[in-house]
């Protein structure tokens, strides 16, 4: 049962991820990306990480993709207005994303040893909270300061443009 669910979710995730890249219309790309995120959230649930799954849905599918869709709708991007990039840029994009894939695969190499260490309950909100605020407190706080800095930066950039527009 779990195995079939895994195959189904993997199929959906990979298929819709391919469609994100191949669809001409940016709105379709965003919608397929949302489906991909749901499939990945399903994987989290299979791994008994309900908290991660629901946060994944809230943050990525529910907030970030809404903003993506918002911008695409506001700029009214569609098939005709899609800019055509030249071949060099495309080759460079393929090459760099291939490198990223290599890095990701490399980081997963030792993952098979981790499976039994966590006991399968690490994704529940209580365990996750204890790990985040105990063992990994410092990195967690650093990450939050990084996010805060990014937020302040965004506000500053927005303000600057407003001032320039008034001049």
């Amino acid at each position, binding site marked *: 049962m779990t195995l079939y669910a895994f195959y189904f979710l993997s199929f959906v995730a990979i298929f819709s991820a391919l469609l994100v890249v191949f669809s001409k219309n940016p*709105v379709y790309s965003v*919608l397929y990306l*949302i489906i991909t995120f749901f499939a990945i959230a399903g994987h989290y649930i299979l791994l008994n990480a*309900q*908290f991660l799954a*629901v*946060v994944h*849905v*809230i943050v990525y*599918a*529910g*907030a970030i993709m*809404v*903003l993506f*869709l*918002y911008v695409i*709708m*506001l700029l*009214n991007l569609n098939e005709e207005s899609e800019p055509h990039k030249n071949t060099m840029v495309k080759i460079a994009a393929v090459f760099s994303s291939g490198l990223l894939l290599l890095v990701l695969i490399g980081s997963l190499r030792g993952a098979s040893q981790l499976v039994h260490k966590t006991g399968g309950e690490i994704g*529940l*909100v209580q365990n996750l909270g204890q790990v985040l605020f105990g063992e990994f407190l410092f990195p967690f706080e650093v990450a939050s300061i990084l996010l805060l800095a990014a937020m302040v930066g965004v506000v500053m950039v927005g303000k600057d443009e407003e001032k320039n527009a008034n001049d």
Partner: protein
Amino acid sequence: MIAFLTYKGILVLVIFIITLAVAAYSTYAERKVAAFLQDRIGPDRAGPFGLLQPLADGAKFFFKEEIIPNVSNKVLFVLGPCIAMLTALMAGVVIPWGNTVFLGGKEYALQIADLNIGILYVFGVVSIGVYGIMIGGWSSNNKFSLLGAIRASAQMISYEIAMGLSIIALILMTGTLSLREITLQQAGGIGSHWNFWNVVYQPLGFIIFLVCAFAECNRTPFDLPECETELVGGYHTEYSSMKLGLYLFSEYINMFISSAVISTLYFGGFNFPFMNNVGLSHNWITVLGSAFFFGKVVFFIFFFMWIRWTIPRFRYDQLMNLGWKILLPLAIFNIALTGLVSLLFSR
């Protein structure tokens, strides 16, 4: 296993039917409340007191001509109302509609799924709900629809933040994300031992949550996405027949679900005063509790309507100011206050 599945299946079906019935009669109640507040009679032609009005409306929606604009994106145009309806119905899964019932020596909980992340699940479903409006508005290929869709997305994102932060203060206090446990913590109340509902401890959080719930449901004074004085009909300008019906209906379902969530989080859910002192058996307490729960829900639905027919619509910049400059800092202040108080008094 089979018995478990049958029981859950029946529960899902019952809650589905109750949700649809409550939503249908909310449309009737809305007009009756409007009529009452404006000193009119309201619908009274279909059946006694107009009680068959929702059926008449439904039949009318089905027999109306269905127009799909030529320039629209047909697949997404149909998908929009479907998503709106689907996500509206999904949130009811985690709400505890009642305590447990003992039947033949077995305990049955009147809740479809007691997830340990219940409240976050509700947030997840709510955050997906906006896609129904956005996809519908965009695929209509109409400027007014698009503006409505864009407004909806900006509004939902803005108010989700304040809503989430107002909930964090409550979670700080209760220490759990499960809606059932939050309800059980509020058990007892006035009577044998004093135990107040969460609204007593979280008045500010409750007000922030309530305002955000109005905004999330697109109800007046926050119904900017369908603001008819500026945008014809907003995101559903191009919709006709039952597709329009689904959009309108999903708004009432959302209202019902948010009333249920408010009652659960802040008003004790299925608990009621003197519940330990009436001297009834557990099953009867559960039945009474569910009745009280629905009473609270009905009150909040009435409150939604009361506000709608009392307060005029905000301007868009006022809406954004309220969300970002008032509710968000207030919610953060509430978190800090709750943290401080629970640290000092270690409640």
